[in-house]
């Protein structure tokens, strides 16, 4: 019996299952392989979206036409928005890192519904394919922006149907992922792992799951109404038939504001994990962290009106939405406070993921505070639909979710691939990325304040200087991105072998080999302590 110990279980990367080659991936129901399917698809679309952004910034380097005409610019920002929102940041952290790590972090062998999990990925691919079809079929690409605002969305000659339906299908994929995670957490936590012994990343996925489940159907039906409007002329949002375009905006933001929390909550979870691990200290105020996650998810449902301050609402509605918007900032600041307090008197190990977490907190704070400016009614009237909004949005969504995504990537890379990456190049990439980011979006605050509207391919000469700086920032950012991605891919071949626990993490994923075996755990662990036991 003694030599049984020598038989090492194959890792999930080696184990082939019943299919060969590519089919061992695209037909696999292993949550880890599905996570990688998502990773590669999301990364590809991220690069496409980023390239569109790069070209848009190049167009804005000078007033007038530089490389594209107005209509192309409209199509670019529409596609950039749809791809980045629906295909990158919404599924980003949950579908990639959630899929890979959620079952491992709660001590389970897989998610509750592995086949449904694979089906969600197929829905994702189908949805994105529909969006791509809309670019080439019919009378020209969609040009409404990712918000599909009525009544333009059913009057434009652009090919709206596949794009809208694609977003609908992507929403469905997101719902099923959320549902899967919720059931997994309710039913499959390892023995002894009570709710308050669950690590914070799963907790954020739990809150996210509810938001995905309860908010996404609303946009589903809204998008279907747009489809019906275009095909059957039903009149829901068409003023000439008695419909109300404002109602569309309400329905749209009822989902799309909570969607921001689908993007940011798992990002906060990943950052919490990184900060405890590299501070080698128990997270400060664990229960407050859990409560603030749930509070953000809950209050996040009731703030959608702040997207519509200038659209026409009653005074009472304006005050209420503004007040609620300020309330959301409270749990977010609790989180930042707790992150900083966790570092206090910790033994901090300065590694790449920790730098990413620092960069995250920095840009997230700027994004958050600028959000408060937009949430106050008087300032909003001035700043609405300017570049200020673009800057705020990118600081929160790209700065928040994007930085957390790359932080998580550098944190869990050794676990996922079994290799270590080159730290020097990773850090160079991060610095370029960070500097480029600030240079790109920083000037937009100023430009917006000065009154430069968003979504135009042209601008007045007075905005020229700021735009030049911003465009140069986009080049720095893009080169940083390229270095990061190339470094991670190069390390797949050249990297040193990763130990089971390279960073001294305490959560369950660091107790199993890197890369994890097919079944995750030989024996399901018995949990007796809290998730961050550094005593």
């Amino acid at each position, binding site marked *: 019996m003694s030599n049984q110990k020598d038989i090492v279980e194959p890792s999930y990367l080696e184990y082939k299952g019943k299919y060969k080659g590519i089919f061992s991936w695209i037909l696999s129901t292993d949550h880890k392989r599905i996570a990688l399917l998502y990773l590669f698809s999301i990364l590809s679309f991220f690069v496409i979206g980023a390239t569109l952004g790069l070209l848009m910034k190049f167009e804005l380097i000078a007033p007038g036409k530089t490389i594209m005409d107005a209509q192309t610019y409209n199509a670019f920002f529409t596609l950039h928005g749809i791809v980045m929102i629906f295909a990158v940041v919404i599924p980003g952290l949950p579908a990639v890192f959630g899929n890979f790590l959620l079952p491992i972090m709660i001590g389970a062998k897989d998610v509750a519904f592995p086949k449904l999990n694979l089906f969600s990925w197929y829905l994702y691919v189908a949805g994105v394919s529909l969006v791509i079809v809309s670019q080439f079929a019919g009378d020209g690409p969609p040009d409404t922006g990712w918000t599909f605002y009525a009544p333009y969305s059913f009057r434009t000659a652009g090919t709206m149907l596949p794009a809208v339906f694609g977003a609908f299908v992507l929403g469905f994929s997101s719902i099923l992922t959320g549902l899967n995670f919720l059931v997994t957490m309710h039913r499959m936590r390892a023995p002894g792992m009570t709710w308050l012994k669950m690590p914070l990343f799963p907790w954020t996925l739990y809150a996210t799951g509810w938001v995905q489940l309860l908010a996404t159907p609303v946009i589903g039906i809204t998008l279907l109404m747009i489809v019906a409007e275009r095909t059957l002329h*039903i009149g829901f949002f068409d003023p000439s038939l008695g419909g109300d375009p404002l109602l569309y905006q309400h329905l749209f933001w009822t989902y799309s504001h909570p969607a921001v929390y689908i993007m940011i909550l798992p990002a906060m979870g990943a950052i919490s994990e990184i900060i405890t691990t590299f501070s080698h200290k128990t997270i400060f105020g664990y229960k407050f962290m859990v409560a603030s996650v749930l509070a953000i998810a809950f209050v996040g449902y009731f703030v959608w009106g702040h997207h519509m301050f200038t659209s026409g609402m009653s005074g009472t509605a304006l005050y209420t939405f503004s007040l609620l918007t300020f309330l959301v900032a409270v749990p977010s600041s609790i989180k930042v406070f707790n992150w900083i307090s966790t570092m206090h008197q910790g033994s901090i190990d300065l590694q790449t993921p920790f730098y990413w977490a620092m960069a995250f907190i920095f840009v997230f704070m700027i994004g958050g505070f600028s959000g408060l400016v937009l949430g106050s009614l008087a300032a909003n009237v001035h700043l609405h639909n300017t570049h200020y909004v673009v800057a705020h949005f990118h600081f929160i969504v790209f700065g928040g979710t994007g930085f957390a995504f790359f932080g998580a990537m550098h944190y869990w890379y050794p676990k996922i691939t079994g290799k270590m990456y080159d730290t020097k190049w990773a850090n160079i990439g991060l610095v370029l990325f960070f500097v480029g980011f600030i240079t790109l979006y920083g000037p937009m605050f100023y430009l917006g304040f000065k009154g430069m509207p968003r979504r135009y391919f042209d601008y007045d000469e007075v905005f020229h200087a700021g735009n030049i700086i911003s465009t140069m920032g986009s080049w720095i950012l893009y080169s940083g991105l390229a270095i990061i991605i190339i470094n991670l891919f190069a390390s797949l071949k050249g990297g040193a072998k990763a130990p089971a626990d390279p960073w001294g993490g305490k959560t369950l994923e660091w107790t199993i080999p890197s890369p994890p075996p097919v079944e995750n755990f030989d024996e399901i662990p018995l949990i007796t302590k809290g998730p961050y036991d550094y005593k």
Partner: protein
Amino acid sequence: MTAETHRDDLASKTGMWLFLFTEMLFFAGLFVVYSVYRFRNPEAFHLAAKELSVPIGTINTIILLISSTTIAMSITAIQKRNKKFTLLLIGITIILGIAFLVNKYFEWGEHIKEHIYPGSPILALRGQGDVLFYGLYFFMTGLHALHIIIGLVFIGFIIVKIVKNKIDSENFVLLENSGLYWHLVDLIWIFLFPLFYLIT
């Protein structure tokens, strides 16, 4: 060996309930739209609702309620190992579901004959309130009918599984879940019926 063989009925049922939440919110969006337009066009909605046939609506309500009962009974029947009776009850559910659709078909056909359908120029002449009422009527009952069709297909698969003994007194969570789905479809109709036919 693989995690796939792991079976957890409670997990499946929890998953189904969560899915039903999403379905409810899906229709909730439409109920919001309905309320807003009813509030804005009280008179037109009042008059248009009078034109819908209450008898057909009532018959369809009764049909769906009975079909919900039969599928609920089939779950008890399979637990008592009475395969034949289970199949009979599910068969009745399917027939009732189809009967509902047939009724709906004639009802819709009647409207369309009178040129009442979304995008019809004659309907447009009757004013915006009527356009919205019938737009909502066709969209919501249409979406509901689509759910009935999906439910029927699903229950059809269940029948095959019961015949092949893949679903039996030990393992009937799939039947239970399709029952839950069918009840939801029924429940949504319970809301649609008064909203369109009864409140005048």
